[in-house]
């Protein structure tokens, strides 16, 4: 019974990780940019949600769509005006640029919001499923995470923009010849990445404390999930997230919680060397 509880905890955690990483994975896969800004964008989304709730009494579920759209706009403009200039340069350049942008955002958040942990407290109680206990806010977070990743998956598969993004991912030169505006697709992709980060932040604000100190940890999770699941696909992020969630949950149980993180990173390093396409082995959305 105890193992079942650990497994369920891991799966719940894993869906949250998947939601956290899917935007990062998309940006990396399509733009070939390691977005160091991702962790701070999540925190930013979290703060917006928290203050909407704290100052104006807006329920996080209502704030979520608004925060997501705002983050889309921010991401779209960032990519269009800045990252597009260097998007074809080596990883050292793009990574350093996004890290510079991260320093700016991080600094302003620390000054304006201070690093005090804040959390939206909804007090929803727990759900008891035959001995397995899940806090209701986590269950809600998991459901939202699954809905969001599901929408993203459908958008990639069905919509015109989704197909254009996939085309750019497969071969940007050929996509340009087919009349796709590659720069604009890049901006939309980065916008979607930021949107997912913002939505993740809104969900996390209900489950975890919001503090700038966590931005690095979230970014690290995104790295691991991407490498474990495989790059640039929604299903890869989902598999990677759930695998990481379960492994961390069991590692925490057996070796103590302080080693759960180490196990995750070690798994990433091993997979990087042994199987760089990730567990799913999918290289696109085809």
């Amino acid at each position, binding site marked *: 019974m105890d193992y079942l509880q650990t497994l369920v905890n891991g799966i719940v955690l894993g869906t949250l990780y998947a939601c956290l990483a899917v935007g990062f994975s998309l940006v990396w896969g399509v733009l070939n940019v390691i977005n160091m800004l991702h962790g701070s964008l999540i925190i930013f989304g979290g703060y917006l949600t928290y203050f909407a709730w704290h100052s104006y009494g807006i329920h996080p579920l209502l704030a979520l769509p608004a925060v997501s759209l705002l983050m889309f706009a921010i991401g779209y403009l960032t990519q269009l005006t800045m990252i597009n200039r260097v998007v074809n340069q*080596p990883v*050292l350049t793009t990574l350093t640029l996004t890290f510079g942008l991260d*320093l*700016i955002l991080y*600094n302003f958040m620390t000054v304006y919001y201070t690093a005090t942990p804040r959390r939206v407290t909804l007090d929803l109680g727990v759900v008891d499923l035959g001995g397995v206990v899940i806090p209701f806010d986590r269950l809600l977070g998991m459901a939202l995470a699954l809905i969001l990743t599901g929408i993203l998956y459908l958008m990639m598969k069905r919509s015109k923009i989704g197909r254009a993004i996939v085309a750019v991912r497969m071969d940007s030169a050929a996509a340009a010849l087919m009349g796709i505006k590659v720069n604009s697709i890049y901006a939309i992709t980065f916008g979607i990445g930021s949107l997912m980060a913002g939505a993740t932040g809104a969900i996390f604000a209900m489950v975890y404390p919001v503090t700038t100190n966590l931005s690095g940890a979230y970014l690290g999770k995104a790295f691991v999930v991407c*490498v474990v699941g495989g790059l640039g696909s929604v299903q890869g992020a989902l598999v990677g997230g759930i695998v990481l969630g379960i492994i961390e949950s069991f590692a925490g149980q057996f070796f103590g919680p302080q080693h759960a993180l180490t196990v995750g990173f070690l798994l990433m*390093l091993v997979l*990087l060397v042994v199987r760089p396409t990730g567990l799913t082995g999918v290289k696109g959305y085809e």
Partner: protein
Amino acid sequence: MSRRTQYLLFALWVILLASTPLWASNYVVRLAVTIAMFTALTLSWNFIGGFTGYPSFSTAAFFGLGCYAGALSERAGVPMLLAWGIATLVVGAFAAALGAIILRLKGHYFAIGSIGVVEVVRLVISSWGSLTGGGDGLNLPLLAGGPNVVARIFLAVMLAIMIVTFLITVVVDRSRLGFGLRCIQQNEDAANMAGVNVTLYKVIAFTLSALFCGTIGAAYASWTGYIDPSDSFSILMSIKVPVMCLLGGPGTILGPVIGTAAFTLLEEVFWANFLDYNRAILGVVIVILIFFLPGGLLGLSYRDAMARIGGMFGRTKAAA
């Protein structure tokens, strides 16, 4: 700039830094120690990041490991200088073994892997409390003589390490090794076909990039007398060092030296004047660097820079 001019400028810079205790305040001496330390780190990174073109963000792992190897040896009763030597060898061996594994990765995967290494080493050190003191960190005996004397001693130490890394850079630059590394940077497959032992060369470059980070880490630990995991393995250092190198001009001999000097002095000004916003200003410096100085300060020409600034405001559409 010819090589001879670069050697000459470096010699002048060393003399200037070494003479700071004679004409400047202790604050400036301390700044000189920091500059010498980061110059050595940047020159080290230049072997893998500049010459070979591999985006390594492992500097903090090597530095932190050096801190702990040195501190633990010293606490076990090993004399200070010997402890620094041990730290150097430990880090060198670690980098050689690690390089043989992760240098098979390229581009983004290598970058992520090298960041992952920093995290793994940091987490192992901070959770291995019985050996390393965990999050509480470790204390080391301070050198006798008060802060002024100690600062002078470590100025000499850091300058010595900086000079050694510079000399190795000069040797590598002129040797077959440097030529091979530049070939790898331009086209690894072609270099392999042309008979460069790619794997060996990359591992050598990676080890060189780590070796003196170990010495510096150990010396830093002795200097400050206290180390802890979050300070020793800061991801900020892993990024700062490449940024300094990019600022100066990667793959050159003097670039890392110029870049570190410019960056450290800028940072010092920001720390002094905008305490709350120093990170943000650092970010702005990075953004400006990426957009306006792609070849670093050494590759700078006035006309290029003006054309770039004009382009930024004139046409907003980047080339596809």
